[in-house]
Protein backbone atom coordinates (compact mmCIF):
# COMPACT_ATOMS: atom_id res chain seq x y z
CA UNK A 1 0.00 0.00 0.00
CA UNK A 2 1.36 3.37 -0.99
CA UNK A 3 0.43 6.65 0.58
CA UNK A 4 0.89 10.22 -0.54
CA UNK A 5 3.87 10.66 1.77
CA UNK A 6 6.05 8.24 -0.15
CA UNK A 7 4.83 8.87 -3.69
CA UNK A 8 7.66 10.66 -5.41
CA UNK A 9 6.15 13.11 -7.81
CA UNK A 10 9.27 13.43 -9.93
CA UNK A 11 9.43 9.66 -10.46
CA UNK A 12 5.82 9.62 -11.56
CA UNK A 13 6.45 12.44 -14.03
CA UNK A 14 9.58 10.69 -15.36
CA UNK A 15 7.74 7.42 -15.85
CA UNK A 16 4.63 8.72 -17.55
CA UNK A 17 5.15 12.09 -19.21
CA UNK A 18 6.14 10.53 -22.54
CA UNK A 19 3.24 8.06 -22.93
CA UNK A 20 0.83 10.71 -21.67
CA UNK A 21 2.15 13.20 -24.20
CA UNK A 22 1.76 10.61 -26.98
CA UNK A 23 -1.78 9.85 -25.92
CA UNK A 24 -2.54 13.57 -25.75
CA UNK A 25 -1.04 14.01 -29.18
CA UNK A 26 -3.08 11.16 -30.62
CA UNK A 27 -6.23 12.84 -29.31
CA UNK A 28 -5.47 16.48 -30.04
CA UNK A 29 -3.17 16.12 -33.12
CA UNK A 30 -1.41 19.18 -31.86
CA UNK A 31 1.99 19.41 -30.16
CA UNK A 32 1.11 22.35 -27.99
CA UNK A 33 -2.17 20.94 -26.78
CA UNK A 34 -0.58 17.55 -26.17
CA UNK A 35 2.05 19.18 -23.94
CA UNK A 36 -0.59 21.24 -22.21
CA UNK A 37 -2.78 18.20 -21.60
CA UNK A 38 0.17 16.31 -20.09
CA UNK A 39 1.05 19.26 -17.85
CA UNK A 40 -2.56 19.75 -16.76
CA UNK A 41 -2.84 16.03 -15.99
CA UNK A 42 0.13 16.17 -13.63
CA UNK A 43 -1.25 19.32 -12.08
CA UNK A 44 -4.54 17.55 -11.34
CA UNK A 45 -2.55 14.58 -10.05
CA UNK A 46 -0.70 16.83 -7.63
CA UNK A 47 -3.98 18.33 -6.49
CA UNK A 48 -6.11 15.22 -6.23
CA UNK A 49 -3.75 12.28 -6.49
CA UNK A 50 -3.35 12.17 -2.74
CA UNK A 51 -6.61 10.23 -2.63
CA UNK A 52 -5.02 7.56 -4.78
CA UNK A 53 -3.56 5.08 -2.35
CA UNK A 54 -2.82 2.20 -4.68
CA UNK A 55 0.30 3.06 -6.63
CA UNK A 56 -0.48 0.43 -9.24
CA UNK A 57 -3.43 2.53 -10.34
CA UNK A 58 -1.41 5.68 -10.97
CA UNK A 59 -0.89 4.92 -14.66
CA UNK A 60 -4.51 4.31 -15.55
CA UNK A 61 -5.54 7.23 -13.29
CA UNK A 62 -3.27 9.56 -15.26
CA UNK A 63 -4.51 8.34 -18.65
CA UNK A 64 -8.12 8.59 -17.51
CA UNK A 65 -7.53 12.11 -16.22
CA UNK A 66 -5.89 13.22 -19.46
CA UNK A 67 -8.73 11.73 -21.49
CA UNK A 68 -11.38 13.48 -19.36
CA UNK A 69 -9.50 16.77 -19.57
CA UNK A 70 -9.39 16.40 -23.36
CA UNK A 71 -13.16 15.74 -23.46
CA UNK A 72 -13.81 18.71 -21.16
CA UNK A 73 -11.91 20.98 -23.53
CA UNK A 74 -13.70 19.62 -26.56
CA UNK A 75 -17.07 20.22 -24.91
CA UNK A 76 -16.00 23.80 -24.35
CA UNK A 77 -14.89 24.07 -27.98
CA UNK A 78 -18.20 22.61 -29.10
CA UNK A 79 -19.95 25.66 -27.67
CA UNK A 80 -17.94 27.73 -30.15
CA UNK A 81 -18.79 25.28 -32.89
CA UNK A 82 -22.27 26.70 -33.26
CA UNK A 83 -20.65 29.93 -34.40
CA UNK A 84 -18.00 28.54 -36.67
CA UNK A 85 -17.71 24.81 -37.31
CA UNK A 86 -14.35 25.22 -39.03
CA UNK A 87 -12.83 26.52 -35.79
CA UNK A 88 -13.36 23.17 -34.13
CA UNK A 89 -11.93 21.34 -37.07
CA UNK A 90 -8.78 23.40 -36.94
CA UNK A 91 -8.58 22.96 -33.16
CA UNK A 92 -8.10 19.22 -33.41
CA UNK A 93 -7.54 18.74 -37.08
CA UNK A 94 -4.71 17.27 -39.03
CA UNK A 95 -1.28 16.09 -38.01
CA UNK A 96 1.13 19.00 -37.88
CA UNK A 97 3.41 18.96 -40.90
CA UNK A 98 6.63 19.46 -38.94
CA UNK A 99 5.75 16.60 -36.63
CA UNK A 100 4.88 14.42 -39.57
CA UNK A 101 8.31 14.97 -41.07
CA UNK A 102 10.03 13.71 -37.94
CA UNK A 103 8.18 10.39 -37.97
CA UNK A 104 9.52 7.40 -39.82
CA UNK A 105 6.18 5.66 -39.90
CA UNK A 106 3.98 8.59 -40.81
CA UNK A 107 1.94 6.33 -43.07
CA UNK A 108 0.72 4.43 -40.04
CA UNK A 109 -0.09 7.61 -38.15
CA UNK A 110 -1.97 9.02 -41.12
CA UNK A 111 -3.87 5.76 -41.47
CA UNK A 112 -4.87 5.93 -37.81
CA UNK A 113 -6.21 9.42 -38.44
CA UNK A 114 -8.67 8.04 -40.95
CA UNK A 115 -10.11 5.40 -38.68
CA UNK A 116 -13.57 6.24 -37.31
CA UNK A 117 -13.27 8.24 -34.08
CA UNK A 118 -15.06 5.60 -32.04
CA UNK A 119 -12.32 3.10 -32.90
CA UNK A 120 -9.42 5.56 -32.96
CA UNK A 121 -9.23 6.23 -29.23
CA UNK A 122 -8.98 2.58 -28.13
CA UNK A 123 -6.59 1.89 -31.01
CA UNK A 124 -4.29 4.72 -29.96
CA UNK A 125 -4.21 3.45 -26.39
CA UNK A 126 -3.68 -0.08 -27.65
CA UNK A 127 -0.69 0.85 -29.78
CA UNK A 128 0.85 2.95 -27.05
CA UNK A 129 1.33 -0.43 -25.37
CA UNK A 130 1.22 0.90 -21.86
CA UNK A 131 -2.22 -0.37 -21.02
CA UNK A 132 -4.04 -3.67 -21.22
CA UNK A 133 -7.40 -3.84 -22.98
CA UNK A 134 -9.03 -4.03 -19.55
CA UNK A 135 -7.38 -0.77 -18.50
CA UNK A 136 -8.34 0.79 -21.83
CA UNK A 137 -11.95 -0.12 -21.09
CA UNK A 138 -11.65 1.58 -17.70
CA UNK A 139 -10.14 4.74 -19.14
CA UNK A 140 -12.69 5.11 -21.88
CA UNK A 141 -15.42 4.04 -19.47
CA UNK A 142 -16.89 1.34 -21.68
CA UNK A 143 -17.42 -2.39 -21.03
CA UNK A 144 -14.55 -4.76 -21.82
CA UNK A 145 -16.63 -6.52 -24.48
CA UNK A 146 -17.21 -3.21 -26.25
CA UNK A 147 -13.49 -2.43 -26.21
CA UNK A 148 -12.68 -5.85 -27.64
CA UNK A 149 -15.19 -5.32 -30.39
CA UNK A 150 -13.98 -1.76 -31.12
CA UNK A 151 -10.36 -2.87 -31.24
CA UNK A 152 -11.24 -5.71 -33.59
CA UNK A 153 -13.30 -3.53 -35.94
CA UNK A 154 -10.89 -0.64 -35.65
CA UNK A 155 -7.96 -2.84 -36.59
CA UNK A 156 -9.85 -4.22 -39.56
CA UNK A 157 -10.58 -0.68 -40.70
CA UNK A 158 -7.01 0.38 -40.07
CA UNK A 159 -5.67 -2.54 -42.07
CA UNK A 160 -7.76 -1.56 -45.12
CA UNK A 161 -6.76 2.10 -44.88
CA UNK A 162 -3.11 1.17 -44.41
CA UNK A 163 -3.10 -1.08 -47.47
CA UNK A 164 -4.76 1.64 -49.57
CA UNK A 165 -2.25 4.23 -48.41
CA UNK A 166 0.63 1.91 -49.12
CA UNK A 167 -0.67 1.39 -52.64
CA UNK A 168 -1.13 5.16 -53.12
CA UNK A 169 2.40 5.83 -51.91
CA UNK A 170 3.71 3.20 -54.26
CA UNK A 171 1.78 4.71 -57.21
CA UNK A 172 3.14 8.17 -56.41
CA UNK A 173 6.72 6.96 -56.41
CA UNK A 174 6.41 5.39 -59.85
Amino acid at each position, binding site marked *: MTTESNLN*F*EDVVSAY*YQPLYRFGYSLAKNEHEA*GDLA*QQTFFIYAEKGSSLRDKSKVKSWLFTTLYREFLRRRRKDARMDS*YEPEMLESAGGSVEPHVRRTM*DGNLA*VEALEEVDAVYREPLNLFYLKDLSYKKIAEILDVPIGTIMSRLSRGKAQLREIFKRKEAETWDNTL
Partner: protein
Amino acid sequence: MDREEAKNILQLCRPGNDEDRNDPLIAEALELLNNDATLQTWFEEQQALDTQISAALHHIEPPADLKTSILVGMRAHQAQSELLMGNAAEEDEATDHSIPFPRRANSADRRSWFKPWMGVAALIAVVFAILVLPRPDESTRLASANQHVATASVPNLIEFLAQQINEFNGSKFDKRSEQINELQSHLASTGMPNPASIPSQLGELATLGCVTFDYEGTKLSMICFKNGQVYHLITANKASFPKDCTPCDGQKTKVFEAKQQAFKIWAEGEQVFILTTQGTAEDIPDFI
Protein backbone atom coordinates in the same frame (compact mmCIF):
# COMPACT_ATOMS: atom_id res chain seq x y z
CA MET B 1 -13.14 -21.52 -29.27
CA ASP B 2 -13.32 -21.49 -33.08
CA ARG B 3 -10.96 -19.71 -35.46
CA GLU B 4 -13.06 -16.55 -35.77
CA GLU B 5 -13.36 -16.22 -32.00
CA ALA B 6 -9.65 -16.78 -31.69
CA LYS B 7 -8.94 -14.07 -34.26
CA ASN B 8 -11.01 -11.58 -32.30
CA ILE B 9 -9.11 -12.37 -29.14
CA LEU B 10 -5.67 -12.59 -30.73
CA GLN B 11 -6.08 -9.05 -32.03
CA LEU B 12 -5.78 -7.95 -28.41
CA CYS B 13 -2.30 -9.47 -28.15
CA ARG B 14 0.45 -6.96 -28.86
CA PRO B 15 3.91 -8.00 -30.02
CA GLY B 16 6.29 -8.46 -27.13
CA ASN B 17 3.71 -7.65 -24.49
CA ASP B 18 3.89 -10.18 -21.66
CA GLU B 19 0.87 -8.79 -19.87
CA ASP B 20 -1.25 -9.52 -22.95
CA ARG B 21 0.17 -13.03 -23.35
CA ASN B 22 -0.52 -13.82 -19.69
CA ASP B 23 -4.15 -12.82 -19.97
CA PRO B 24 -6.11 -16.10 -19.62
CA LEU B 25 -8.39 -15.39 -22.58
CA ILE B 26 -5.52 -14.47 -24.89
CA ALA B 27 -3.38 -17.36 -23.63
CA GLU B 28 -6.15 -19.78 -24.58
CA ALA B 29 -6.33 -18.33 -28.10
CA LEU B 30 -2.55 -18.46 -28.44
CA GLU B 31 -2.68 -22.19 -27.75
CA LEU B 32 -4.68 -22.66 -30.95
CA LEU B 33 -1.83 -21.32 -33.06
CA ASN B 34 0.13 -24.53 -32.52
CA ASN B 35 -2.45 -26.57 -34.41
CA ASP B 36 -3.74 -24.09 -36.97
CA ALA B 37 -1.24 -22.96 -39.63
CA THR B 38 -3.75 -20.60 -41.28
CA LEU B 39 -4.41 -18.90 -38.00
CA GLN B 40 -0.67 -18.76 -37.33
CA THR B 41 -0.05 -17.00 -40.68
CA TRP B 42 -2.87 -14.56 -40.05
CA PHE B 43 -1.51 -13.83 -36.56
CA GLU B 44 2.00 -13.16 -37.85
CA GLU B 45 0.63 -10.65 -40.37
CA GLN B 46 -1.30 -8.96 -37.57
CA GLN B 47 1.76 -8.79 -35.37
CA ALA B 48 3.84 -7.28 -38.18
CA LEU B 49 1.28 -4.54 -38.75
CA ASP B 50 0.95 -3.91 -35.02
CA THR B 51 4.72 -3.59 -34.70
CA GLN B 52 4.83 -1.08 -37.54
CA ILE B 53 2.03 1.09 -36.17
CA SER B 54 3.25 0.93 -32.61
CA ALA B 55 6.76 1.95 -33.70
CA ALA B 56 5.32 4.88 -35.63
CA LEU B 57 3.42 6.14 -32.59
CA HIS B 58 6.54 5.85 -30.45
CA HIS B 59 8.36 8.13 -32.85
CA ILE B 60 6.22 10.96 -31.54
CA GLU B 61 8.65 12.61 -29.14
CA PRO B 62 7.55 15.13 -26.52
CA PRO B 63 9.21 18.55 -26.60
CA ALA B 64 12.65 18.36 -25.00
CA ASP B 65 11.68 20.70 -22.17
CA LEU B 66 8.30 19.15 -21.32
CA LYS B 67 9.45 17.23 -18.27
CA THR B 68 11.34 20.22 -16.88
CA SER B 69 8.39 22.43 -17.58
CA ILE B 70 6.03 20.09 -15.68
CA LEU B 71 8.37 19.86 -12.68
CA VAL B 72 9.05 23.59 -12.55
CA GLY B 73 5.34 24.30 -12.76
CA MET B 74 4.62 21.93 -9.90
CA ARG B 75 7.38 23.39 -7.72
CA ALA B 76 5.96 26.85 -8.27
CA HIS B 77 2.50 25.57 -7.41
CA GLN B 78 3.80 23.89 -4.28
CA ALA B 79 5.64 27.02 -3.19
CA GLN B 80 2.47 29.06 -3.63
CA SER B 81 0.42 26.51 -1.69
CA GLU B 82 2.86 26.60 1.20
CA LEU B 83 2.91 30.37 1.18
CA LEU B 84 -0.87 30.46 1.38
CA MET B 85 -0.87 27.99 4.23
CA GLY B 86 1.76 29.98 6.12
CA ASN B 87 3.54 26.89 7.35
CA ALA B 88 6.24 26.51 4.77
CA ALA B 89 8.95 26.66 7.43
CA GLU B 90 7.54 23.63 9.16
CA GLU B 91 7.78 21.41 6.14
CA ASP B 92 10.46 18.87 6.72
CA GLU B 93 10.31 16.97 3.49
CA ALA B 94 11.94 19.69 1.43
CA THR B 95 15.36 18.23 1.89
CA ASP B 96 15.53 16.58 -1.52
CA HIS B 97 14.30 17.38 -5.00
CA SER B 98 11.19 15.26 -4.83
CA ILE B 99 7.87 17.02 -5.02
CA PRO B 100 5.30 15.89 -2.51
CA PHE B 101 1.63 16.52 -3.05
CA PRO B 102 0.71 20.12 -2.34
CA ARG B 103 -1.33 20.11 0.81
CA ARG B 104 -4.78 21.52 0.90
CA ALA B 105 -5.83 24.38 3.08
CA ASN B 106 -8.10 22.07 5.06
CA SER B 107 -5.50 19.37 5.40
CA ALA B 108 -5.63 17.43 8.64
CA ASP B 109 -2.10 18.42 9.63
CA ARG B 110 -2.82 22.13 10.03
CA ARG B 111 -1.72 23.68 13.29
CA SER B 112 -3.97 22.38 15.97
CA TRP B 113 -4.53 25.75 17.68
CA PHE B 114 -5.99 27.11 14.50
CA LYS B 115 -8.82 24.62 14.20
CA PRO B 116 -11.25 25.86 16.89
CA TRP B 117 -11.02 29.45 15.65
CA MET B 118 -11.66 28.33 12.12
CA GLY B 119 -14.76 26.52 13.25
CA VAL B 120 -16.05 29.48 15.27
CA ALA B 121 -15.34 31.89 12.43
CA ALA B 122 -17.08 29.65 9.93
CA LEU B 123 -20.10 29.32 12.20
CA ILE B 124 -20.35 33.08 12.66
CA ALA B 125 -20.06 33.59 8.91
CA VAL B 126 -22.83 31.11 8.20
CA VAL B 127 -25.17 32.61 10.80
CA PHE B 128 -24.43 36.10 9.49
CA ALA B 129 -25.11 35.02 5.94
CA ILE B 130 -28.43 33.43 6.86
CA LEU B 131 -29.77 36.15 9.15
CA VAL B 132 -28.36 39.40 7.85
CA LEU B 133 -27.48 39.25 4.20
CA PRO B 134 -30.20 39.67 1.58
CA ARG B 135 -30.80 36.74 -0.72
CA PRO B 136 -30.25 37.61 -4.34
CA ASP B 137 -31.87 35.79 -7.20
CA GLU B 138 -28.93 33.77 -8.46
CA SER B 139 -29.82 34.27 -12.08
CA THR B 140 -29.63 38.02 -11.79
CA ARG B 141 -26.54 39.78 -10.57
CA LEU B 142 -25.33 43.27 -11.20
CA ALA B 143 -21.70 44.18 -10.77
CA SER B 144 -20.58 47.76 -10.89
CA ALA B 145 -17.47 48.78 -12.77
CA ASN B 146 -15.40 48.88 -9.60
CA GLN B 147 -16.21 45.21 -9.07
CA HIS B 148 -18.60 45.77 -6.16
CA VAL B 149 -21.36 43.24 -6.62
CA ALA B 150 -24.85 44.38 -5.87
CA THR B 151 -28.15 42.73 -6.50
CA ALA B 152 -30.66 43.99 -8.98
CA SER B 153 -32.98 42.66 -11.57
CA VAL B 154 -31.48 42.23 -14.99
CA PRO B 155 -33.08 44.61 -17.51
CA ASN B 156 -35.37 43.02 -20.05
CA LEU B 157 -33.10 44.07 -22.89
CA ILE B 158 -30.20 42.10 -21.38
CA GLU B 159 -32.45 39.08 -20.84
CA PHE B 160 -33.52 39.39 -24.47
CA LEU B 161 -29.91 39.55 -25.71
CA ALA B 162 -28.84 36.63 -23.50
CA GLN B 163 -31.67 34.56 -24.96
CA GLN B 164 -30.78 35.54 -28.53
CA ILE B 165 -27.10 34.71 -28.02
CA ASN B 166 -27.83 31.36 -26.38
CA GLU B 167 -30.05 30.39 -29.30
CA PHE B 168 -27.66 31.78 -31.87
CA ASN B 169 -25.78 29.78 -34.43
CA GLY B 170 -23.61 30.60 -37.42
CA SER B 171 -26.44 30.21 -39.93
CA LYS B 172 -28.19 33.23 -38.43
CA PHE B 173 -25.48 35.73 -39.32
CA ASP B 174 -26.67 38.52 -41.61
CA LYS B 175 -23.16 38.55 -43.02
CA ARG B 176 -20.12 36.40 -42.36
CA SER B 177 -16.61 37.74 -42.72
CA GLU B 178 -13.28 37.70 -40.93
CA GLN B 179 -12.77 41.34 -41.89
CA ILE B 180 -14.40 43.85 -39.60
CA ASN B 181 -14.38 46.47 -42.37
CA GLU B 182 -16.67 44.31 -44.46
CA LEU B 183 -19.06 43.86 -41.55
CA GLN B 184 -19.10 47.57 -40.80
CA SER B 185 -19.77 48.37 -44.44
CA HIS B 186 -22.66 45.94 -44.39
CA LEU B 187 -24.14 47.50 -41.24
CA ALA B 188 -23.74 50.98 -42.68
CA SER B 189 -25.47 49.95 -45.89
CA THR B 190 -28.47 48.58 -44.00
CA GLY B 191 -28.80 51.63 -41.76
CA MET B 192 -28.28 49.61 -38.56
CA PRO B 193 -26.05 50.87 -35.69
CA ASN B 194 -22.47 50.76 -36.81
CA PRO B 195 -19.79 51.07 -34.08
CA ALA B 196 -18.05 54.42 -34.46
CA SER B 197 -15.11 53.08 -32.48
CA ILE B 198 -14.01 49.61 -31.52
CA PRO B 199 -11.73 48.91 -28.54
CA SER B 200 -8.29 48.51 -30.09
CA GLN B 201 -7.57 45.06 -28.63
CA LEU B 202 -10.95 43.80 -29.77
CA GLY B 203 -10.38 45.27 -33.23
CA GLU B 204 -7.25 43.15 -33.59
CA LEU B 205 -9.25 39.92 -33.36
CA ALA B 206 -10.68 38.13 -36.38
CA THR B 207 -14.42 38.46 -36.77
CA LEU B 208 -16.98 35.78 -37.45
CA GLY B 209 -19.92 37.82 -38.71
CA CYS B 210 -22.64 40.26 -37.74
CA VAL B 211 -26.34 40.16 -37.03
CA THR B 212 -28.94 42.73 -36.05
CA PHE B 213 -31.79 42.68 -33.54
CA ASP B 214 -34.83 44.84 -32.88
CA TYR B 215 -35.91 45.00 -29.27
CA GLU B 216 -39.12 46.98 -28.83
CA GLY B 217 -37.96 49.58 -31.34
CA THR B 218 -34.33 49.63 -30.19
CA LYS B 219 -32.09 48.67 -33.09
CA LEU B 220 -29.04 46.66 -32.10
CA SER B 221 -26.19 45.33 -34.19
CA MET B 222 -23.87 42.57 -33.00
CA ILE B 223 -20.41 41.79 -34.34
CA CYS B 224 -18.87 38.51 -33.19
CA PHE B 225 -15.14 38.12 -32.59
CA LYS B 226 -13.10 35.00 -31.96
CA ASN B 227 -10.06 34.56 -29.79
CA GLY B 228 -10.23 31.09 -28.29
CA GLN B 229 -13.59 32.28 -26.96
CA VAL B 230 -16.33 34.14 -28.82
CA TYR B 231 -16.94 37.79 -27.90
CA HIS B 232 -19.81 39.91 -29.15
CA LEU B 233 -19.78 43.68 -29.52
CA ILE B 234 -23.32 45.03 -29.56
CA THR B 235 -23.95 48.59 -30.66
CA ALA B 236 -27.06 50.73 -30.22
CA ASN B 237 -27.94 54.41 -30.44
CA LYS B 238 -27.92 56.02 -27.01
CA ALA B 239 -31.16 57.93 -27.66
CA SER B 240 -33.23 54.78 -27.95
CA PHE B 241 -31.34 52.67 -25.42
CA PRO B 242 -33.19 51.76 -22.18
CA LYS B 243 -31.99 53.92 -19.30
CA ASP B 244 -31.93 51.02 -16.85
CA CYS B 245 -29.11 49.47 -18.88
CA THR B 246 -26.78 52.44 -19.12
CA PRO B 247 -24.11 53.22 -16.51
CA CYS B 248 -25.21 55.50 -13.68
CA ASP B 249 -23.61 58.89 -13.09
CA GLY B 250 -20.01 58.48 -12.02
CA GLN B 251 -19.78 55.01 -13.50
CA LYS B 252 -17.99 54.26 -16.73
CA THR B 253 -19.36 50.80 -17.22
CA LYS B 254 -22.12 48.56 -15.98
CA VAL B 255 -21.91 44.77 -15.81
CA PHE B 256 -24.72 42.24 -15.84
CA GLU B 257 -24.84 38.49 -15.83
CA ALA B 258 -27.74 36.54 -17.31
CA LYS B 259 -28.20 33.02 -18.67
CA GLN B 260 -24.50 32.14 -18.32
CA GLN B 261 -23.54 35.28 -20.24
CA ALA B 262 -21.73 38.37 -18.96
CA PHE B 263 -22.47 41.84 -20.36
CA LYS B 264 -20.33 44.94 -19.96
CA ILE B 265 -22.02 48.16 -21.06
CA TRP B 266 -20.52 51.58 -21.69
CA ALA B 267 -21.45 54.69 -23.63
CA GLU B 268 -19.33 56.69 -25.99
CA GLY B 269 -20.56 59.68 -27.94
CA GLU B 270 -24.04 58.99 -29.24
CA GLN B 271 -23.67 55.25 -29.03
CA VAL B 272 -23.95 52.57 -26.36
CA PHE B 273 -21.77 49.47 -26.56
CA ILE B 274 -22.15 46.07 -24.94
CA LEU B 275 -19.31 43.58 -24.83
CA THR B 276 -20.57 40.13 -23.99
CA THR B 277 -19.19 36.62 -23.70
CA GLN B 278 -20.08 33.30 -22.15
CA GLY B 279 -19.27 33.06 -18.44
CA THR B 280 -19.20 35.54 -15.59
CA ALA B 281 -18.03 39.13 -15.26
CA GLU B 282 -14.50 37.84 -14.71
CA ASP B 283 -14.54 36.31 -18.18
CA ILE B 284 -14.94 39.66 -19.88
CA PRO B 285 -11.47 40.70 -20.98
CA ASP B 286 -10.16 44.11 -20.13
CA PHE B 287 -10.58 45.41 -23.66
CA ILE B 288 -12.22 48.63 -22.57
